């Protein structure tokens, strides 16, 4: 079938199962926006290209399917670099199509030209500059394959205008449906080595104080069920990193919650005291390990990861298994069953009682606001958690509110936590929540945002209002760049430098209304419940609820940067308790 490159691009995207595209047109990508009108793919018109990227990420977080964004050349391409880097750090499957100046004009400083593939080389899993219209079907097929297999990640496809412009003879091509990939350097391996899996099973059967240290690889590999089976069969406790919140139910008695810099005391301490860490799809991030040389000093390590470059990158494992987390976990369960299943596990009662002792002495805690104090953010999050359906999807920005959300929410379902972990991208919440709602319109979607983050990407609420994505935003307004303020308080002798944002400017309620949302403002604890109930009732419009919170509330526990996890600082009210 004869067609032009623009039509081929649309057809190729349809063939990959794309149902929604987040984007914003401009000069170089203009010809592709014409065949878009005739396509089955829904396009969501964003207000800033960064929004398109984070929406694609949010969609991928919530559905497991690759998110797709399409923007023009030059400034649009540079605007989407942050989401690309974010997706690269958090292994999010995403395909971004960028327009480019005509092939002959590349390298001439043409209008809205930039070296997109050069700029994005180090923040994508792979990228392409397509030079011929005839290459479009194969490149798109390869791009989705690379984005979604192995360790997932973002792939960028840069398309010069001439090969998609029907008025240019270079766009003429004959359609073909690619059915294979010629990628001799890309052969992702799924299965783990059987002998290594047996060795891992043996270590598990010998361990007296084992901990399952589970990361984003569990969710990426759809391995939550396998993890549940492994944990229940062995009775081993599970910590879920920021990237695996929801990968194991928080309400499960074996769940210790989030480890790391702001993790639960018990999760942090159990890892420190463990004699075996079973790391599944986790990467020993500095926010989890604290001072690496003093991290889990007594533990042997089994490390399972799809990416062999992660094995031994930070901590030398005793057993390193390269493979898909779900597949390897299932094989591990089989190997353990052959060794006797739960009967082959040693008596770990002493370890269990140490864990429950920590849980009793060091639960998450905060002091409810008194008198005319403003709200405590933890209280807001508890109320929100308890007044929304169990399978609510929660997106967050980056900072104190993100840590409180991860701490206080009960994630009992996979793919309900949408967040920027590795890159720590402020402003992620609102566009990511829109993407999640686009992917899961059946679910309630709340964005928990800080006032600093909100001001970075609030314009996408216009997208939510006009495109029909009734997300809800819980805005934790503490008038500060709160996490930076906390560091200045704790580590810079309370010398506050450029962290005060002001309490009343902007007027968030009015701003929300101007953006096409319902705006609510909450100042006292009694108002919190009713405001959330009101927001939950609104399904035809986005809602922004501004919770006016205490500025001086800090996130605890906290392992100060560069310190050992053994030096975790607990809430002031718990500091005299025996560790």
């Amino acid at each position, binding site marked *: 079938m004869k067609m032009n490159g623009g039509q081929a691009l649309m057809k190729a995207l349809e063939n990959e199962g794309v149902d929604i595209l987040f984007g914003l047109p401009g000069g170089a990508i203009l010809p592709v926006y014409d065949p878009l009108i005739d396509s089955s793919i829904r396009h969501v018109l964003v207000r800033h290209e960064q929004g398109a990227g984070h929406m694609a990420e949010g969609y991928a977080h919530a559905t497991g399917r690759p998110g797709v964004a399409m923007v023009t050349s030059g400034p649009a391409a540079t605007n989407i670099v942050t989401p690309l880097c974010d997706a690269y750090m958090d292994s999010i499957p995403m395909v971004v199509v960028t327009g480019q100046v005509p092939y002959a004009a590349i390298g001439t400083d043409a209008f809205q030209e930039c070296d997109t*593939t050069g700029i994005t*080389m180090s923040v994508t899993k792979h990228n392409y500059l397509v030079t011929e219209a005839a290459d479009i079907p194969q490149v798109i097929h390869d791009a989705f394959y690379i984005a979604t297999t192995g360790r997932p990640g973002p792939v960028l496809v840069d398309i010069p205008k001439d090969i998609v412009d029907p008025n240019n003879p270079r766009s003429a091509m004959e359609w073909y449906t690619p059915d294979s990939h010629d990628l001799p*350097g890309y052969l992702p391996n799924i299965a783990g080595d059987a002998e290594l899996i047996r060795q891992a099973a043996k270590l598990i059967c010998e361990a007296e104080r084992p901990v399952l240290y589970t990361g984003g690889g569990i969710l990426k590999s759809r391995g939550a069920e396998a993890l549940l089976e492994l944990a229940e069969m062995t009775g081993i406790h599970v910590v879920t990193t920021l990237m695996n919140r929801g990968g194991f139910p928080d309400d499960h008695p074996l769940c210790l919650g989030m480890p790391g810099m702001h993790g639960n005391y018990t999760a942090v301490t159990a890892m420190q005291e463990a004699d075996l860490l079973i790391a599944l799809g986790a990467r020993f991030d500095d926010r989890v390990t604290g001072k690496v040389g003093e991290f889990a000093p007594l533990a042997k390590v089994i490390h399972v990861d799809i990416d062999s470059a992660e094995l031994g990158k930070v901590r030398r494992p005793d057993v390193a298994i390269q493979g898909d987390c779900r597949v390897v976990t299932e094989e591990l369960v089989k190997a353990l069953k052959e060794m006797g299943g739960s009967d082959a596990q040693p008596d770990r009662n002493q370890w269990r009682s140490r864990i429950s002792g920590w849980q009793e002495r060091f639960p998450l805690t905060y002091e409810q606001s008194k008198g005319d104090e403003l709200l405590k953010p933890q209280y807001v999050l508890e109320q929100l958690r308890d007044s929304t359906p169990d399978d609510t999807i929660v997106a967050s920005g980056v900072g104190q509110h993100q840590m409180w959300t991860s701490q206080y929410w009960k994630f009992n379902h996979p793919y309900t936590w949408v967040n920027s972990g590795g890159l720590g991208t402020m402003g992620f919440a609102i566009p990511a929540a829109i993407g999640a709602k686009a992917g899961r319109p059946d679910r309630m979607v709340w964005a928990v945002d800080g006032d600093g983050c909100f001001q970075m990407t609030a314009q996408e609420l216009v997208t939510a209002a006009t495109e029909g994505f009734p997300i809800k935003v819980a805005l934790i307004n503490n008038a500060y760049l709160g996490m930076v303020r906390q560091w200045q308080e704790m580590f810079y002798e309370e010398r506050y430098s450029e962290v005060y944002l002001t309490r009343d400017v902007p007027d968030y309620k009015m701003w929300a209304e101007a953006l096409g949302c319902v705006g609510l403002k909450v100042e006292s604890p009694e108002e919190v419940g009713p405001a959330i109930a009101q927001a939950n009732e609104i399904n035809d419009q986005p809602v922004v609820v501004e919770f006016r919170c205490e500025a001086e509330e800090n996130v605890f526990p906290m392992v100060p940067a560069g310190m050992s996890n053994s030096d975790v600082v607990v809430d002031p009210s718990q500091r005299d308790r025996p560790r």
Partner: protein
Amino acid sequence: MSSAPGSEVGGTTTLVVRVENKAGVLARVAGLFARRGFNIESLAVAPTDDERFSRLTIVVGVDAAPMEQVVKQLDKLVNVVDIQELNPAASVERELMMVTVRADSEIRGQILDLVRIFQATVLNVGYDEIMVSLTGSPSRVDDFEDLLRPYGIVEVQRTGKVALPKLVKSTPDPLAP
């Protein structure tokens, strides 16, 4: 990827990287070194017998240990097909040098002596300069360059080394599976 133990001598590592012969691949490979502040000491690139692939011989002035992560990251590049870390003791290395040396009529004879001893080749002769070339192991090329230096090197161009693993000398074990 195969990696030979002890492939690092004097704080340098030699990698032989087979890549797809496509635009931009060299930039991807070089970027992984640049990002970590690792300087590439020499680099030789040419297509292989299979025109779909090119072979890069990269010498990096970094010990094997910090290189481990770079090698793993290199292996992740979609266009990188395979990587060998070459142990100098277990490989044959060659480099080509072209050099122009000051050589007025009085000292030309001394330089030609060196050319004979090293079995180098005279490429071009000028009024008071001479251009010669030498192919050999990198250390032999170093020696030749050192000996020419006192005469006054006008210009020197070295290719960077290329290398292949040494061949098996022993007969295969007939009882091996």
